[in-house]
């Protein structure tokens, strides 16, 4: 019921972008009331007063930003350092050059660009399919009434409490058996890994989408139905467009999860050429004979860039998505 009444769920959730708007609106309201000391021009600047009101907040902010950024600054700096070792990277920004980027991209021992492409293909395909499968399921749960519906919803939530990595041994044995019979989707194939990831497609994602689908008024479907549209047409041409923001969130969350996934990928992908960034880079630095820290840093920066860019680009939606699931 809460899902449909929704107020809290969407207050934070749907809203997504609304947080910004809300604050802006209230700031305006605030200043018009006129009791914000900084806004009034006539009163002389009082440091003590300013510090007690907002100054100390800036100190907290600066401390936290330093804490947040210093590993990032370190890795960027060492990626720009042409010298290889970890010790050489300690003097921040002492030298600037792109040699290590060239090294990691051209090292015949380290197929970085292949790993990168593998990761993008695996994570991208998984994200698209997850959104599709999840949206199909969410649509039926949201719009249709059928026996077993409540049971379906509950089991999806419950099953998702047990992440796939718990069953990694069984997944490995299952995939190696499948590989004996059908080498194209078995061990050491991207297709096989993607299929395993799709096992987790229903679940949190579906639940998130289900909540969002419920906020689209069903009178829209009914109007379309009266105009003669079938269920497939309603779904693909009307509903999917209306819920686009949540599709983006789920796609991004699924993409990030697959990029980050190490356990299953490291067990299923055996050849170095087939591996993903998470597996390849981890094995690279954990090898004690590999001493080229700058090249690794360059690889890390390049691997993180697409994810960080996507994340910041869709930031507003993600924040909404994160809370929407919970505020139900």
């Amino acid at each position, binding site marked *: 019921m809460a*899902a449909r009444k929704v107020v809290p769920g969407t*207050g934070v959730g749907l809203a997504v972008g609304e947080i910004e708007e*809300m604050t802006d609106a*209230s700031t305006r309201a605030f200043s018009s009331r006129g009791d*914000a*000391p900084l806004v009034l021009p006539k009163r002389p600047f009082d440091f003590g007063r300013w510090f007690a*009101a907002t100054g100390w907040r*800036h100190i*907290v*902010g600066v401390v936290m*930003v330093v804490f*947040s950024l210093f*590993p*990032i600054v370190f890795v960027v700096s060492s990626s720009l350092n042409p010298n290889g070792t*970890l*010790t050489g990277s*300690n003097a921040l920004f002492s030298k600037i050059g792109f040699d290590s980027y060239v090294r990691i991209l051209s090292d015949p021992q380290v197929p970085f660009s292949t790993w990168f492409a593998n990761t993008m293909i695996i994570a991208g395909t998984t994200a698209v399919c997850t959104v599709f*499968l999840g949206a*199909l399921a969410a649509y*039926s749960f949201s719009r249709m009434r*059928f026996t077993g*519906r409540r049971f*379906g919803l*509950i089991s*999806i939530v419950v099953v998702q409490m*047990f992440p*796939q990595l*718990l*069953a*990694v*041994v*069984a997944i490995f*044995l299952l995939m190696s058996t499948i590989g004996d019979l059908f080498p194209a989707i078995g061990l050491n194939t991207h297709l096989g890994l993607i*299929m395993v990831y*799709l*096992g*987790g*497609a*229903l679940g949190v994602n579906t639940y998130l989408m289900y909540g969002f689908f419920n906020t689209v008024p069903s009178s829209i479907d009914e109007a379309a139905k009266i105009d*003669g*549209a*079938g269920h497939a*047409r309603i779904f693909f041409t009307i509903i999917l467009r209306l819920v686009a923001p949540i599709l983006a969130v789920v796609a991004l969350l699924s993409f*990030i999860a697959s990029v*980050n996934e*190490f*356990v299953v990928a490291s*067990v299923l992908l055996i050849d170095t050429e087939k591996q993903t960034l*998470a597996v390849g*880079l*981890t094995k690279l630095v954990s090898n004690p004979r590999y001493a080229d820290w700058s090249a690794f840093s360059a690889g*890390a920066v390049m*691997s993180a860039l697409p*994810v*960080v860019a996507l994340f910041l680009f869709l930031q507003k939606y993600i*924040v909404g998505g*994160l*809370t929407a699931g*919970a*505020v139900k």
Partner: protein
Amino acid sequence: MSIATEEDVREDAPPKQTKQQRRAAGIAEQASGGIKVLLVKLLALGLVDALALYAVFVLALHEQWAVLVIVAAVTALVNWIYFSRRRLPAKYLTPGVIFLVVFQVFVLLYTGYIAFTNYGTGHNGSKEQAVSSLMASSLERVEDSPAYPVTVVERGGELGLLVTDPEGDALVGTNEEPLAEASGAEFDGDVAVSADGWNTLQFADVLERTDEVTALAVPASDDPNDGAIRTPDGSSGYLYVSTLEYDEAAGTMTDLSTGTVYSDTGVGAFTAEGGEQLLPGWQITVGFDNFVRAVTDTRLAGPLLYVTAWTFAFALVSVASTFFLGLFLAIVFNDLRMRGRKIYRVLMILPYAIPSFLSALVWAGMMNESFGFINQVLFGGASIPWLTDPLLAKVSILIVNLWLGFPYMFLVCMGALQSIPDDIQEAAKVDGAKPWAIFRLIKLPLLLVTVAPLLIASFAFNFNNFNTIYMLTDGGPRDSNAPIPVGFTDILITMVYKVAFTGQTRDYGLASAYSIIIFIVVAVISIIAFRRTKSLEELN
């Protein structure tokens, strides 16, 4: 409330349609579909059916009848669902459910099964496989045996030997298939050089694949005691006979050189009287052995205990530290008079945007004892064992996990704080409440209602937070007393991974038993969580 009742009515009493109405609805649905939709549907179903047919053929070839029946049944079901005019919900649910059942539900159940077997290094296959592999590994050349002329042949990437026996007959076989009459053999002098269905390898190819060629051992007949043909050079082969003799009737292996008799005593390997085992053995179910071993074997029970304790401590402290830091920051930055809040926010959520495996690897580099940035620069050349001291490594992990996790809690608390209506606060202020009282008595309870499910989810996530532990310390420092590769900062899930996939021996059975333990813990937590939050009852 009116919405709810309306809905309940709909759910409880679905409108009863007459047969005619249903037919009419079906026809209308069909008519609205359009030819394109129909084509796409036919194409997709055709593709599924074609793949299923192929799968059925392959399964029949390998005589996997049970799986074959399941595949056929599922395919039939899928066709029925999509060709039927009704079953509308099933049409939308089937694709996802198939993946969910196979790769989530089935594998969890299969883990449960493996936990009751001795599956692992040395116990990988059936008894027949163990016998043939034991025989093959103890092959020795029969002294003064004649040399057979051989030709290396290949079929579909698999190597085989074309052998000319002393009578001048051509026989062909591979590692798996014993020698059999070769059809259409052509001879160059006395030596068979090619046969139908096989490609003869050229000299250069033989050289290139020397390792594979010398590893070939083609059984002379179905009986493993007859030995196998091997070739050291790709042109002449010799008969090799195993030093072990397998007595199928008695089920015993006899070492011909020492005379020791190994018999099947029900432990999944041929065992001599003195307890000495021939490995590889085979896979059997061992009941609760793995669980009993994990709890009672003192060398395993110790690690299990401290790993479990640390897993709980790690998950709890991580949730608490990230939540309180996140909440504190949310309160600090929730002041509308403050400038630059957006910039702070973007900079502070960067740790959350970076893939966590990369962050953990970078932190591991910075915390390196002798070369790392923290020791060299921040502590001026000290050598603090951030990741190599059992206690300090745990502190380091918690610090790094705080770094990784606080932005999430910050965002969540920010959202939750802003969704608390202002008028409640103002009312309290008018009634004379102090800011701290407002926070403690009004805001915090409201916030916790919103955030509690997230905290539970976060606990469950950290309970299995593989990446942070594995990338940062790899579970180390290693506990040298334990027979399994376990360390002082391992949590349960990294221990599962290490027992199953690293080290000299892989023990899938024990690893699965550990998985089951995690499973039970998570199940208990979820039950409590669902009870407390009543979130399942609210589902509709």
